Each structure stands twice: as C-alpha cells, then as structure tokens.
C-alpha cells in the first residue's frame, strides 16, 4: 500500500468518525432540547453536516466508481430536501400557532 492510499484511508476514517460524532450529538439534542424550534435546530445538524462528512468518507473508500456517483446523488438529494423539509415543518408549526420560546398554541395562551 502506498503512502497516498494510507493517507486516503486515514482521512476517510477521520471523516466517518467525525460524522458519526455529529450524528450522535444531533440525536441527543433532538431528544433533550426544551421545545420544537430548538429541537429542529439540533436535528438540522444531522441533516446538513453529518451526511456531508459520512458520505465524503464513504466516497473516499469507494474511489472513482459508479458507487461514488450514486453516493454523490444521494448527498445532493439529502442536501436539497433536508432544508426544504425543515422549512416546511417550521412554517407549518408557525402557522398552527406555535411560537418560539414556549411550545403552546396561541389560543391556550389567550385563555390563560
């Protein structure tokens, strides 16, 4: 194994490890954060940076093959659809009356 391949291996394992760490941190945040919008903030970590790192790490292992192109397509779809789904979710929650800071509907606040 040449020096270059070893360096690629090390870089790939590094990317995969950091990606796994980001996924785990985002999962803990989505479980432990106090209300909906902070949970979305935590979950967006696992929607944006974690797929980039993990799929880049896998692509370094795959090399220039068809699998790499498919992985690039998966990454493109994830990066396009993740923020769109988050935006639609926040918009729907805001429209339903949930305000940031206290996750209660507006008419319940008016009643209290």
């Amino acid at each position, binding site marked *: 194994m040449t020096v270059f391949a070893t360096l690629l291996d090390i870089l790939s*394992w590094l990317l*995969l*490890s950091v*990606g*796994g*760490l980001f*996924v*785990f941190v*985002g*999962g*803990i945040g*989505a*479980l432990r954060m106090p209300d*909906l919008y902070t*949970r*979305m903030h935590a*979950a967006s970590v*696992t*929607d944006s940076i*974690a*797929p980039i790192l*993990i*799929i880049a*790490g*896998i692509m370094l*292992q*795959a090399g220039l093959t*068809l*699998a790499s192109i*498919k*992985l690039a*397509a*998966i990454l493109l*779809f*994830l990066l396009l*659809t*993740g923020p*769109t*789904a*988050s935006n*639609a*979710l926040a*918009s*729907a*929650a805001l*429209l*339903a*009356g*949930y305000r940031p800071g206290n*996750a209660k509907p*507006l*008419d319940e606040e008016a009643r209290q």
Partner: protein
Amino acid sequence: MYYAVTFALIVTMALALARALLGPTVYDRVLAVNMLGTKTVLLLAVITFLFGRPDFLDLALAYSLINFIGVLAVLEFFRGRARDEHPGDGGDR
C-alpha cells in the same frame, strides 16, 4: 470503523424514535420521523460498504426521495387541518 458509524447511526435512530414517541406536539413527531428517514438513508449507504453489497445504494437513493415526499405530504395534511381550526392566524402564507 464502519461499525462505529453504524453504531452511532442506530443509537441516533433510537433517540429519534424516542422523540417521536414522546413528542408533545405532532410537529415534534414529524421532525423525529424526518430525522429517522435521513438516518436510514445514511445507514443504508454505510451498510453497502460494511457488507459489500452495492444494491443497497439504489435503495438509499429511492428512500431519500420517498422520505422527502412523505414528510411534505404529512405537513400539507396537518397545515390544512390547522388552517381549518385557526382561521384567524392568516390562512395562507
């Protein structure tokens, strides 16, 4: 090292599933299910190289699209319901 990433992904999927079961509002559940779908795509991509079976990449590709459309459909359904229940909150964006 693939095992470490697989383990992190499965633990995170369990955490997201816990949030989907606990979540006080329906939007928490949608958020958790969306997160679970993203993690499933990543898990399929990692499993492809963990077990050396390249078919799984096609499954991941299809799953990422289906997950997105599913989340949008559920949100559209609940947005229509919220618009019916709260007519004064500004019906359309």
